[in-house]
């Protein structure tokens, strides 16, 4: 017999007591718990878990990025992404888990519960996720998602259609090995698949970059003359799982909402292209289209990429960040985690009395072609370390500075398939490149530019 002085203890179907902080669990007709119901209500209490989100103040991007006081915290990359989304006034986010992204999108779910993200759900798989992001963006709301490796490739068809549909959104790519064989370790080969989609692509070196690039990506991609998606890539685990210091604005402020009515295309109009074209005859085969409609459409997408340059300069301080370039004996050009490793390699070189300059690439699309031509004009040796087999960055750098620099370009060292990159590998290439000592890590075929075997270079270029 129950004690009338004690409150009755409610139990769930398994017989476990329901504590007062547990929300009432609603189920759908199939009996599955409904997890997307918002907001969470605390029984018996009046505290609104979304109160802090409701009190967020909208500030200008200029204040948010350049004037707002920042506080330093020691957090993981996934947590940095969460904090960026918290301050970005995101309307809609869709998740599908994959290592090493899972924690990121789980944390976005926490933000949803706290009211910082207006809608959030788990998709069926990445094709569905990226398609849902397309729908959300076309409807005019601010969208965020993240994926990695095989997930990126599974979603690549809708991802590659975002730019043509002129859909601003931010997608975070926490790069990892692309199968097969199955592996979940770091490797940024997937970036090479993203470079020619027509989207803007940033590569974050560390947790701070990730935090800043996500927030700035929303603002840059939503500019009327850009109106394009932004991919923010980072090297999985090294950035997502490791902790680092991140300087962040207070949680009580957020970016202005997306103003979709100011975009380059009308929002969600199923009677107009590109939505209309999706159910019409293929444009290049239609008698109702000019012969060059798709061609000028592609031109317009890439013109949008070009136009983003001035905003990247305005908000991110440039497409690349040169350090100590003038007078350096050699230059290292790197992006992502390879940039972090390069900094340490440069310190070791300095210990050996070798003065090495550094160019960190922040923006892969648009690519800092003009900047590199100027910065590399007097360089004698350029070393380009990468976390992938194919050397996509080296190819881009070599193509950009061809005819503008006589430098010997070492496309390496490369690590891939989950390997880390000892900084000594980079040091060896710098010292070896300057002294003529043969490398044990970089084949001669991966050395381009001055004083190289052109037949070997031709072989290398064919094989990447």
């Amino acid at each position, binding site marked *: 017999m129950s004690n009338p002085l004690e409150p009755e203890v409610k139990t769930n179907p398994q017989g476990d007591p329901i504590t007062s902080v547990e929300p009432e669990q609603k189920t759908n007709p199939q009996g599955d718990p409904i997890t997307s119901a918002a907001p969470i209500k605390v029984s018996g209490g009046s505290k609104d878990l979304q109160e802090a989100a409701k009190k967020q103040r909208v500030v200008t991007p200029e204040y948010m990025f350049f004037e707002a006081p920042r506080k330093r915290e020691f957090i993981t990359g996934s947590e940095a992404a969460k904090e960026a989304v918290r301050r970005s006034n995101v309307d809609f986010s869709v998740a599908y888990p994959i290592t090493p992204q899972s924690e990121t999108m789980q944390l976005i779910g926490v933000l949803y519960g706290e009211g910082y993200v207006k809608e959030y759900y788990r998709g069926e798989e990445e094709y569905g996720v990226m398609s849902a992001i397309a729908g959300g963006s076309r409807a005019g709301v601010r969208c965020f998602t993240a994926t990695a490796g095989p997930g990126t490739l599974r979603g690549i068809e809708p991802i590659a259609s975002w730019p043509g549909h*002129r859909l601003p959104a931010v997608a975070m790519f926490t790069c990892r090995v692309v199968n097969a064989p199955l592996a979940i370790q770091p490797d940024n080969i997937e970036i090479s698949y993203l470079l020619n989609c027509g989207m803007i692509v940033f590569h974050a070196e560390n947790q701070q970059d990730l935090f800043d690039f996500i927030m700035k990506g929303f603002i840059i991609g939503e*500019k*009327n*003359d850009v*109106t394009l998606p932004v991919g923010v890539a980072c090297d999985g685990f090294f950035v997502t799982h490791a902790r680092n210091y991140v300087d962040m604005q207070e949680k009580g402020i957020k970016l202005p909402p997306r103003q979709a*009515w*100011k*975009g*380059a*295309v*009308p929002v969600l109009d199923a*009677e*107009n*292209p590109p939505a*209309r*074209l999706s159910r*019409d005859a293929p*444009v290049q085969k*239609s*008698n*109702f*289209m*000019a012969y*060059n*409609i798709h*061609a*000028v*459409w592609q*031109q*317009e997408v*890439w*013109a949008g990429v*070009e*136009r983003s340059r*001035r905003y990247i300069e305005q908000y991110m301080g440039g497409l690349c960040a040169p350090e100590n370039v003038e007078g350096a004996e050699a230059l290292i050009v790197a992006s992502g985690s390879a940039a972090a490793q390069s900094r340490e390699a440069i310190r070791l070189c300095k210990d050996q009395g070798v003065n090495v300059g550094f160019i960190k690439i922040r923006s892969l699309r648009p690519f800092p072609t003009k900047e590199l031509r100027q910065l590399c004009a007097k360089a004698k040796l350029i070393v380009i370390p990468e976390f992938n087999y194919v050397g996509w960055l080296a190819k881009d750098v070599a193509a950009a500075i061809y005819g503008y620099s006589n430098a010997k370009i070492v496309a390496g060292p490369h690590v891939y398939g989950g390997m880390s990159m000892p900084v000594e590998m980079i040091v060896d290439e710098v010292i070896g490149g300057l002294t003529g000592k043969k490398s044990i890590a970089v084949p001669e075929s991966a050395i381009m530019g001055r004083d190289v075997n052109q037949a070997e270079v031709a072989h290398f270029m064919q094989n990447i």
Partner: protein
Amino acid sequence: MLLQGLPAEKERIIVPGPAGFMPPSAAQLGVALPPSGVGIAYGHHVPEDIAIAEMARQMLTKPNATIFPGPMVLWAWNEHAVEKAMAVLEIAAQIPNVLIIPMPDYRPKYPKVDPEEVINPNHPNLTIWGNKIEACIFVGVHCHYANLTLKMIRAGTNCCTAALCAEQGHEDAMLSVHDMDAAKLRRVAQIFKRVREQMGINLPSDGKNVRYTGLQSRVNGNETHINPLVALKPGAPPAGVHMPSEGQMPH
């Protein structure tokens, strides 16, 4: 670099075509969008008034000059859209014999477009060719579709294109000015008036300077011309229609 006048003929980058089978976009040719207060003339940055005055000269001298109003000034989305539409008519009122051919939407036209009556971003060259238009102004067109259109016209026709853009402008137009709200559009009309008077070009005494297309003429009692300021004032919205204030809908 900001030029203080129009670029010399040999320096011009974006000029009336036909530019060729598949010419590079203006962005590929290095033409960037200018900051506020600066226009584009033939691929170069010039003061806004210089670009507008050149628009006026082109529209006042080239055969079959046409204004192409897009959805953002054709439909009464909000009060500001109506105000802008009236300002566009003030510009039209300064150009003798001008045509006004709408781009009412962006959807492909089935079974085929009537190029005399409308222009469409999927095949704008047909309207330019069909009406032998050698100078035109786009206004109120969403930027993406304006850019597609401008590229195709430059590729395949000899038309001198101009854009009055509410946003950042259009590098693929031969002449472009931006941030065009109603007040700036009215200023464009004033510059057109000044240039017209300087060139000694008179308007018809009855003010009927806008030339009807064939269909426009047929539905208007076979009249050939109309005074845009007298006849085209908008009526009140139908009963029960809420007119949203500025900023709620397309600008």
